[in-house]
């Protein structure tokens, strides 16, 4: 379990190391199986008739049917929650990126008193429990007649999305070298010019990473969406799935089909942008 791959020195040590490597490989394989199996099983089940789901489950799909997916987009109207989630998560992300970029630029590049307290404050807000503001937000949205509307979700979403955006973006912009901007300042460029002409183009990858992270957090959010919507017209994907009900029994086939559909876009984003997401998540979070 060393963190560096130590090279075998001499023949005597070799046996011990290959034994260690074997244990290591086995443990890692088990972990990967543990990670992937629930997905595999959900896919199999989403293709299996409900009647066969809990009767002698077999690890391999027996007879594949697409009925659950058909029902999901037919009578279930799963398109509506997907649309709701896209609108809410998309709007929140775009707004947070616009406002957050200005703040992140100032926090990463300008030198002024109060920067450290601001960062501390923002970090503190990302950590505080959502449940602690559900009651006033509910009363506020109710008095503004915004319960069960898009703005009634987008506004509460800012509470976690805005600090997250500013925090990740600041960490990410700090890692962009300053040289070009400083050279531009020497040549007489204004702050506005060095920001729009030099930093912004360089920061496009940072903005993309931050946007993806914020979007994922909004897409996955459950408590606010559950508290501030009333019916299927405005429910987001997680709420719709969690509240799936059948006429006589739990419609597991459809639930799992919905789970696969809700997971697919996020999983795809993670697989494609894996490296960037890891950087964004850990930038600024851990110092050596």
């Amino acid at each position: 379990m060393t963190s560096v791959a130590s090279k075998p020195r001499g023949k005597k040590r070799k046996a011990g190391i290959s034994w260690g490597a074997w244990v290591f490989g086995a443990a890692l394989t088990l972990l990967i199986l543990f990670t992937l199996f629930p997905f595999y099983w959900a896919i199999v089940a989403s293709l299996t008739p409900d009647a066969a789901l809990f009767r002698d489950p077999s690890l391999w799909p027996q007879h594949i049917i697409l009925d659950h997916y058909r029902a999901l987009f037919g009578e279930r109207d799963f398109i509506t929650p997907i649309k709701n989630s896209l609108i809410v998560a998309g709007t929140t992300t775009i707004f947070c990126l616009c406002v957050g970029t200005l703040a992140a630029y100032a926090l990463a590049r300008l030198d002024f008193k109060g920067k450290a307290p601001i960062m501390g404050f923002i970090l503190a807000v990302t950590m505080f429990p959502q449940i602690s503001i559900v009651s006033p937000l509910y009363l506020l949205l109710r008095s503004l007649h915004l319960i069960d509307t898009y703005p009634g979700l987008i506004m509460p979403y800012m509470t976690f999305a805005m600090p997250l955006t500013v925090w990740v973006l600041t960490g990410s912009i700090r890692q962009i070298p300053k040289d070009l901007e400083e050279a531009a300042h020497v040549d007489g460029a204004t702050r506005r010019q060095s920001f729009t002409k030099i930093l912004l183009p360089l920061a496009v990858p940072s903005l993309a990473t931050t946007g993806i992270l914020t979007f994922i957090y909004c897409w996955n959010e459950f408590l606010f969406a559950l508290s501030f919507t009333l019916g299927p017209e405005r429910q987001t994907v997680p709420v719709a799935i969690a509240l799936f009900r059948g006429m006589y029994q739990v419609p597991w086939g459809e639930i799992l089909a919905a789970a696969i559909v809700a997971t697919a876009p996020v999983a795809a984003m993670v697989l494609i942008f894996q490296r960037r997401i890891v950087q964004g998540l850990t930038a600024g979070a851990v110092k050596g």
Partner: protein
Amino acid sequence: MRKISRLGHEARLGWTLVGPALSVIALIAIFPLGWTVWESLHLHELRMPWLGQPFVGLANYVEIGKDPRFWGALAHTAFFTVVSISLELLIGLFLALAMNRAFRGRGFVRAAVLVPWAIPTVVAALLWRFMFESEGGIANALLVDVHILKQPIVWFIETATAWVPVILADVWKTTPFVALLLLAGLQNIDLSLYEAAAVDGANAWWQLRHITLPLLKPAILVTLIFRTLDGFRVFDLIYVLTGGGPGTSTEPVALYTFNALLQNLRFGYGSALSVVIFAITFGLAMIYVKGLGVRLGGDET
């Protein structure tokens, strides 16, 4: 003189740029927090509007003190947090050490473990609920096959067994995040330390105990903070997996508060519960930051 004016200008620009983001946060996060405190000092039953909203002082907090369901919920939350975080740190450390070394398929491992972290918690909870659902579910089938269980059991009917899928689901979903934070810490450790130790004939175990773990301490503490605070606000996972049941025996504080607010529409009492949760979270964060001297990256070094 010119330098001072330049700094003054920079400060003004800085605050102007930070202003919009800060006011959004203040308006929708901090102001409501104050409102919660105000609500918590009043009797406010949305079901009984004729009662009005009289000021009751600390009556709601006194009621919390005597409310066995709250203390139960607090105990469940603490239990859940301690057990799941311990497992996540152990497995996460192993994963981080694994991902930190070069082997074939490392990219695949990194991507694979990240997927559970990225999917909605609700979905994760449903996947695990499904596997443990009914006597004919896959968990029962597999466990009977490998002779861990003699016969299938109904997992969600008893408290002890209902915790199993809850903890497993949380470990499954969150360990990747833990591993990533620890991996970032590992990558900051100077490799020459290991080389020097190897020259002195130190074995892998010695290196882990005397180099890796001490130097990884800051990363471990940061992870502990993040995960403890996450654990204390657990909601989605248990709402979907057990609904707090059987009875209220797995109900965490966030779920109890949600029920008080939006099921029973007791806004005064629910707000008081919210304030208590906030205070506990805040206290825990303070203990970590002040007591253990965790430094969170805020400034450039």
